[in-house]
């Protein structure tokens, strides 16, 4: 029997570098996730990898962080949120932005792209481009392998069947053997980028809508608050924030107000910060 490696430094790195809290009891999960990194970097075992981690070699740190992220997602996951986006958020913004005809949407933790592509499908349904709208849909994730997958836009049958109605599947994807490839049209609507939510949001545009779903729950409270605050800084005064259903009741959603009878949909409750005010005028 080998004794359990000390994961305290790993927990420290994850928290410091990605805001992620490592659940202490999930040692089996940690092992399963780290083994591919052990093999890829040619380590003997997990303890040798953990030892090397102390030297802070960037490629290794990034690989470990990526391996430790939970990337499950699905098209139209938590359908209600997408209904709210289509029925409440989008009509209000269409009216509010009718002069500029510009919409900027950020999907903060997009995993393999299911969430931004679901948004793209709804935008496509709304035929905004035909009416001369210019839409920026940025999708980011800390995991570069997920971003590469999202850019590729190829999904297994298993991945498409949950949440994707048959008509959408057939009209927006082409079958490649047992897999399904998203149409070029939808792929071109999304700009993907590897990005850590702990880093500066300076490169992002002022957003009309931010999707931040099923990622805050992995963070410690301080990180949640900081991420939400900084999203607030780049969110337009009348912009909307959409979080996951499990996250919507939490008290840490400070600085936002919950939309009436729309779980997971928030608006800003505080005045826009100075940077925004000067731009919005």
């Amino acid at each position, binding site marked *: 029997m080998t004794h359990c490696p000390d994961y305290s430094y790993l927990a420290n790195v994850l928290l410091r570098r990605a805001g992620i809290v490592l659940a202490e009891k999930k040692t089996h999960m940690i092992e399963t996730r780290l083994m591919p990194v052990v093999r890829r970097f040619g380590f003997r075992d997990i303890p040798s990898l953990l030892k090397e981690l102390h030297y802070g070699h960037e490629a290794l740190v990034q690989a470990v962080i990526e391996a430790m992220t939970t990337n499950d997602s699905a098209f139209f996951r938590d359908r209600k949120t997408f209904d709210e986006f289509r029925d409440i958020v989008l009509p209000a913004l269409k009216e509010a932005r009718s002069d500029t005809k510009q919409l900027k949407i950020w999907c903060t933790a997009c995993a393999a792209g299911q969430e931004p592509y679901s948004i793209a499908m709804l935008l496509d349904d709304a035929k905004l481009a035909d009416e001369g709208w210019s839409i920026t849909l940025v999708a980011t994730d800390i995991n570069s392998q997920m971003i590469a997958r999202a850019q590729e836009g190829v999904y297994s049958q298993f991945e498409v*069947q949950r949440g994707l109605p048959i008509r959408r599947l*057939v009209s927006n994807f082409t079958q490649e053997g047992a897999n399904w490839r998203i149409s070029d049209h939808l792929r071109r609507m999304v700009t993907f980028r590897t990005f850590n939510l702990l880093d500066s949001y300076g490169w992002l545009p002022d957003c009309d809508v931010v999707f931040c779903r099923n990622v805050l729950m992995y963070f410690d409270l301080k990180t949640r608050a900081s991420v939400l605050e900084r999203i607030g800084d780049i969110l337009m005064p009348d912009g909307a924030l959409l979080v996951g259903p499990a996250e919507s009741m939490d008290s840490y959603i400070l600085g936002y107000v919950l939309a009436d009878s729309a779980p997971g949909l928030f608006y800003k409750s505080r005045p826009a910060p100075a940077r925004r005010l000067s731009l919005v005028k």
Partner: protein
Amino acid sequence: MKTCLVVDDSRVIRKVACKILADLSFETMEAENGAEALMACRRKMPDVILLDGQLPQMSGIDFLKSLRSETKGNHPVVLICTTENDPTDLSEAIIAGADEYILKPFDRELIAAKLAEVGLV
């Protein structure tokens, strides 16, 4: 109580599906091939059919075409079941009148989700 006809040549799959459907408060019927399924429908039209794409003799899609030629509108709702390597063409299935698809192996959660998508649970 809503009724569901499970059409599959595998007895095990029919049993698993019927158990899940019964738990979801459906009355279930079984058929092992397309001809039997057509007969079952003529006797008593179900609300929904769980249809395997690859049946012996008559394919799922051929069964669907015959069924739709005998019935009007979208009744019954048809969920076509395929496997990863099944050549069943989903576009063809839609044209023939399938309402949704399910990839096997299925579980309770997936069947419930698909039935919810077509408004049956």
